[in-house]
Structures are given as structure tokens and as C-alpha cells.
């Protein structure tokens, strides 16, 4: 079972966080921060695994991969194979690459819902369901089409771009 999926940048800002066991939001933020503090102190060229019993309970393991400015983190338990989880991060990143062509952190920041769509096709209720990038892409495209279709009914534009926070 996969317990959590996290994406955070090298400053510790979470870009995506999905916990497959319910946790209150403060706890979630705390976990994200703890994971970040452990990851940021890891040197380069070391193994990608961590034992994190103290954070996620007994029998929890963590695998992470550092791509450019992002850490991709998967938390899982004993019923998953470590190297297979490493592969899964690879699958996720490849799919994102196909989705956004040369994906970078900004793509992930601005496409929050699409990220979730992709992830939901791979990990379902804590279990790995799909590992082939093309199948995932197919499903994601279909869903996006449906979304666009259901959105196009409205005539009035809903978003005002360039809105600034300070008034």
C-alpha cells in the first residue's frame, strides 16, 4: 500500500500532497515539513531510500528522487517492492513529461488539477493500478476532454486573469 505521495521543491514548498490514510491538515503539513528537513540534508549520489518509522508508523519506507528543483516522494509499506517504487516515480515523471512536454516546476504549479488526474490514474486508493505511460495518458486525455466539454456550456468567461492580490 502506498501511504502518501508528495512533491515539494528544494525550498520545502509543497507542490502536491496526497495522503491515502486520512490525516488532519495540520498533521499533513507537519509531515511535509519533516520529510523536507530529512531530504534537504541528504547529500547527492546516495541511495534513495529512507526509514521513516517515526513519521509514518512502523514498517514505513520512503523513496525519493530529486529532479531539478523538485523532490518526488513516495511513502509506502512492506507490501511494495522498493525498486519497483523507484520505477513508479520514473513512470510518473515520464507521464508528466508527455503531458506537458519538457515538464518543469512551473507546469506543476499551474496545473494542479491535471497533476491530480495523472496521479489518480496511477495510484488508486493506495494501490498501484497502472504503470504504462501511454495508458495513463489516454485516460488523462479523455478526462480532460470531458472537462472541457462540460465547461464550454457556460458563455460567460469565469476567470479574470492578471488579478493581483493587493487591492
Amino acid at each position, binding site marked *: 500500500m502506498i501511504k502518501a505521495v508528495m512533491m515539494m521543491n528544494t525550498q520545502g514548498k509543497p507542490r502536491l500532497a496526497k495522503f491515502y490514510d486520512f490525516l488532519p491538515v495540520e498533521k499533513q503539513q507537519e509531515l511535509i515539513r519533516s520529510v523536507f528537513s530529512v531530504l534537504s540534508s541528504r547529500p547527492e549520489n546516495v541511495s534513495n531510500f529512507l526509514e521513516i518509522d517515526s513519521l509514518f508508523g512502523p514498517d514505513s519506507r520512503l523513496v525519493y528522487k530529486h529532479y531539478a528543483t523538485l523532490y518526488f516522494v513516495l511513502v509506502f509499506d512492506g507490501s511494495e517492492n522498493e*525498486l519497483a517504487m523507484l520505477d513508479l516515480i520514473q513512470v510518473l515523471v515520464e507521464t508528466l513529461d508527455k503531458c506537458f512536454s519538457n515538464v518543469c516546476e512551473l507546469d506543476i504549479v499551474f496545473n494542479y488539477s491535471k497533476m491530480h488526474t495523472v496521479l489518480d490514474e496511477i495510484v488508486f486508493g493506495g494501490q498501484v*493500478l497502472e504503470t504504462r505511460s501511454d495508458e495513463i495518458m489516454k485516460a488523462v486525455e479523455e478526462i480532460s476532454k470531458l472537462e472541457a466539454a*462540460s465547461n464550454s456550456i457556460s458563455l460567460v468567461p*469565469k476567470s479574470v486573469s492578471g488579478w493581483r492580490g493587493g487591492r
Partner: protein
Amino acid sequence: MDNMFQRSLEDLIKGFRLQLLGESSFISRALEEIRREIKATDLSTKSTALHKLSYLAAIHGVDMSWAAFHAVEVVSSSRFHHKRIGYQAITQSFHDQTSVLLLITNQLRKDLNSVNEYEVSLGLECLSRIGTHDLARDLSPEVFTLLGSSKSFVRKKATGVVLRVFDKYPDAVKVCFKRLVENLETSDPQILSAVVGVFCELASKDPSSCLPLAPEFFKILIESRNNWVLIKVLKIFAKLASVEPRLGKKVAEPICEHMKRTVAKSLVFECVRTVVSSLSDHEAAVKLAVAKIGEFLVEDDPNLKYLGLHALSIAAPKHLWAVLENKEAVVKALSDEDPNVKLEALHLLMAMDSYELCAKSDPLFCNEIIISVLSVCSRNAYEIIVDFNWYVSLLGEMTRIPNCQRGEEIEHQLIDIGMRVGDARPQLVRVSWALLIDPAMLGNLFLHPILSAASWVSGEYVEFAKNPYELVEALVQPRTDLLPPYIRAIYIHSVFKVLVFCLGSYFSAQESSSGSSSTVAFTYESILNLVNVIEIGVWPLSGAYDVEVQERAKNVLGFIGMAKQDIAKKVNLQDNEAEACRVTAFMEDVFSEELGPISANAQEKVFVPDGLELEENLGDLEEICGKFLKPVESDSVPCADKISFSVSNLRIRDQQEASSSSTSLPPKASSSLLAEHRKRHGMYYLTSEKNDPDSNGTPNDYPPANDLASEILLDPLDPKRKAKHRKSRPVVVKLDEGDESRIITSQAKTKQESVTDDESLSRAIQSALLVNKKGKEREAKGIQI
């Protein structure tokens, strides 16, 4: 008209990045907006607001539980876009206590029955994340239908949800299990992968329930070529083999096949793990697995090294040979720059019976282990050690490991612990005595530093000794001739401290006739005996070559001379004329001051008195003292000769003194002393056919120190031991600053020794220490005669 200007999620994100107000005020403003917008009746507005709220909750930790009802409203929309947002909010924020949870039951049912497979998938995902008992019960018919759906996309997801449904509503098993099992025979690899994934979880929880399906799993094991599927099936067999050992035999063959054929490292690792954890009785399989581990250990990839070590530590308890085969790699791993690899290697070593390991492997490896264990345990003033009695006896054990060359470090730690941990002193004295009494130790050059520490400890903490008489015997035994003079001097001084202690307790016992305050009671005979033994043992040293030894020997003899008279007179402390009593009391006072660790900054704290000039460069001295500080020249008569001449003069004088002294006992030849010692402590000596009067026997005459390992192991049957475990950790004296930790390894340490490294290291060691202790108990039981 508000809708015109509603910010979407994208706007919110953009705004966040451009904002100048500060994060928290931006968030609170956004929240205000959301609260307003979400109350709107228009579903589009509502859903956008909900979408923004979900984002803030996930990324910024904002609480969204208050919007639960709105999420239910949004999800009822017919538009896919809204449904998605609604379900996302629900899966993220709903839990068992959410009051409106039951309201979504009907909606879920509708969506699960939808023709649009993506709507179905939304519903299924929601159910799999937040499904409760009631939801599972109400919706299991729908799940049952979906398990047989024609669309594989749907079937895949329905399989995924089955786990949660079974978990929350066990009766569903009756309904859905058959369909699940049918799916085991599917040709679609993704569905198969999902099904075996579910069974893997089910097998973890209750292996016996999945046992009847073993033939199906076996078929998959043989036929499948999909690595994900194979990995899951292997995990299932690992669990099943633990309840049904006969399975192991059948499965070993195919697993070996996979190990040999596959190129996927993940599959190889899983095979290895399955073999060493569940099939450890099948020799051929284990051999192959260990070979694969060996391959992993020499790879450059740190992940493979780490996993190899992990697998080795699972295999180690039953298959020690596996570790020996790979010992070079393990030793290299101890100094690897990756903290995980280092930790795993250390964990591996500490969990094993290191004594047995060292007996079979080479000295370099032994010493590597010893040095690592010592450095880790002593880090930060022994912060990870809780049971110091055990650790002290471990130090004694290490001394007895053949080829131990880490004398200095063990010496340092024995003394350090004595100074810092008051509660450990009795055990320290006990361990020290065992080390001192053993004549074989005296012959081993590498152990001399440890012996010097042992003797110092015995002298300093003599009040904890059970039998000071035996201690003294150990300290004056004839074979101490083999020790270098500076250590001999420490021995003599310790004898002195013991003597002072015994005399002190004897005199105070005389005073209070109702029994002495100390634990050791001395009668007239016993104290006289003690004094005689010391005198006999120390007397030959008063003519020693080394002046330090000579000096101390004379101090002791002089003290004895004075004390003997007063003992003979049976005086007590009350008698003011008794010189010995006063002197004894005075010396006791001197020795009673506790010595503690000294801060490295202590010198700086001493104020320089006025008028004292501290010159850094003493080159000026050369002018003044040049003629006195001439270097030793080698062309003139060698100094050594000069010294020896003068000492030998002293010796002659001493002998003349000695012969006229009042001691009645003539000096015994050292050979007969040895014979006496041999008589009393026969168990330590090899049986000799001829009574060899030659006292300078080679070290090989004596039995190896290992035989005496039982002496210092804790008695496992001691009922008090359990109680001691529950005791809280003894106090360790730590200095606030200037507390130096010795750097004992010359290997380059990683610069980034993060706190987490230590913490996880500590935890690993703590858990391994608990296991090790149990191992020691077993070992002790095994070799106690």
C-alpha cells in the same frame, strides 16, 4: 453578477505568486472570498470556490471540514467538471466522523451505475479512500456488478476498491470474492496486477484465508512475465510459506529460475528477499540468493548496495557464512559515504554474534567491527547506552576477542565511564578484576593499556569491590613482570589505594564494635594476611630498574611498615597516639575526592595571576638557558650506561637496607611465588607434568583468554536482572562545554553528520542492543559449565 469576477484556481495560484502582502494575509483574504462564493446557489461558482479551497487545504494546510455540505452539493451536479471537483474535495476532507457522509450514498450509487466510465471511476476512487462500513454495505452490490464489467478500465478500478470494501464490511466477501478469484485468470495484465495486489494485502492480514488459492498463484508464478505481477505473487508466497512450510519446496525451483533469468533488479531483489526470509531452509535457493546479494554489494549504485546489505541482514542470523563470504564488501560499507549504507552495515554487524564472527575471520575485519561499535556507542557521552552494566561487560568481552588491537580506545572508555557514570562503577570493578586476575592477558602487548585502565579503576573504586583481597592478589601476581614500568607503577598505586581502603575499614571496624560500616569486614587475621601479601608482592619492586616503580613500591612498603605496628597493637581510631590510624584516615580523605572529566576549556578559565607573563615564543630562553638545555650528544659516553650505573648503585644500597629491615620474611625467589600463585589459581594454568621452576615461561604456556569469557558474562539466571532492566538510566556526567569527543578513526568521516543520521543510527543500535543482549544470555547459558 459576482460571477463575472470570481477568481478561478489558476488566478488564485498566479495571485499567490505575485502577492506582496504576505502569505497568511493573502490566504485569509482568499478564504473570505471563498466563504462568500461557496454559499452561492449557482453550482459553477460553488464548485470553483470549492476547488480553490481544496487547493489551499492540501498545499497550505487550511482547514476545509466546514465546507463538507457544500461538497455534497457540488457533487450532485450533472456536469463532469463539477463532479470532479466535488469528489476531489470529498476524498480529501471526509473521514469517519464527517456528519454529512451518508448524504453522498445515493449520489455514489448513481455515479457507480453511470454509463460514463470516468464518472464510475470517480465514484470508485471516492469509495476506496473514504469508504465506511455503511457505505461499503450499501454499495457492495454495485461493486459486485462492476467487477464483472466489460470495460477493463472499470474492472481494474473496481478491483482496487474491493480491498477497502472487504476491510470495512467483511460480509461483502461472500458476495464479491468469487468474482475476484475469477479475475485471477484474466489475460489482461493490468487487471491481474490489480488482483494480485489485492491478494497481497489480504495475505498480509490473514495468510491462511488465501492458502486455498495457492495453485492459482503458482500458475501465475510460472507463467507470468510481468514484473509487477511477479513481485506481488512472490510477496504472497512469502506470507503463505510461513503458514504452510511445504509450499516452500514447490516454490523454490521457479523462484531460482526467475533469479537466474530476469534482468529486472527489482524482481531479483524480491526473489532474494523471499528466499532468505521464508525459504531459508532450502540450501540451493539460499546459495543462489547469497550469490545475488554478493553481486548487489559490489555494484556502484548505492541503492543496490543498500538493498544488498538489507537482504544480508535478513539472512545473517541463520546463515553466518553468507556474511563471511561478503565480508570485504561489508567492511567497505562501514565507511561508505552514504549514511544509509553505513547504518545498514553497522546494524548487520551488531545484530550478529560478533564473537563467533571474529573467531572465524581475519583480524582486520574484527578490528573494524570493534572500532565502529566503540565509536558509535561512545558518541556524545554515550547517549545511546541505557544499560551501562551490559556495555561495560561488552568492553570486557571485546578485550577477549582474539586479535583485538584497540587497547587504547577501550582503556579510554573504561576510565571515562568510571568518571562519568557513578552507577556503573561496581560492574566496572567486577569486569576489571576478571581482566586483572587472568595471567594470559599480561602477555598480550595490545591489551596492556586496557589492563592499566582496569587497575586504575579497581584502585579508584575499590569500595565497590566484593573481595579486595583477591584484587590485591591479582595486582601483585608474579607475571606482572611482563608489564612495562609505567603500567606497573599504576598497579602499585592501585594496591596502595586498596590498602588504604582496607586499613581504613579495619580501623573503623575496631572502633565501632557492632560491625563495620563498609561492606567488607576485616578481622585481625585477614588484615594481617592482606598486608603480608602486599608486602611480599611489592617488596621485589623496591629494587626495580624504573625509578617510578621503585618510588611507589617504597611508598607502599613504608606505609605498611608504619601500619603493621599499629595493627599488631590492635588500636582503634580513638587512640590519638596511633599514627597509622591518623595517616590512614588522612590518605582515605585524599583518595576520596572524586575525579571527574575535565573540560577542554578548563585551562582558559584559570586566571592568569598578575605579573605572570605568558610568552608564546620561548626562543628568548635559548639565550639564558642555552648551556643547560644542551641536546643529548651521542659521541660521549652513552647516557644509558651512566644511568644504569647509578641505579645499580641504588639497588645495592637497597638490598643492604632490606637485609637489615625488620621484616622477618626472607625474600622469596620469584619462581616459588609463581608456584604458589599457580597452586591457588590452578584453573587458569595448563597442567604441567614437570614442576617447572622457570618463572619466565612464554605466553603460550597459558590457556587462551577466551576460556574465561564466562567469568565476566552476566548471570542470565539472576532474577534481579530483570528488575535492573526496568531501572531508569544511570546518571552520566557531562560537561556543559569543552567536553571533547575523541576521534578514534583515521578514516575520513562524512562532513554532513546530520542529526537524523545519529537519531536513526541510535535507534538501530538500540534495537540491535536489545537483540544482542538476548543473544548474550543465550550464549552464556550455552557455555556455562
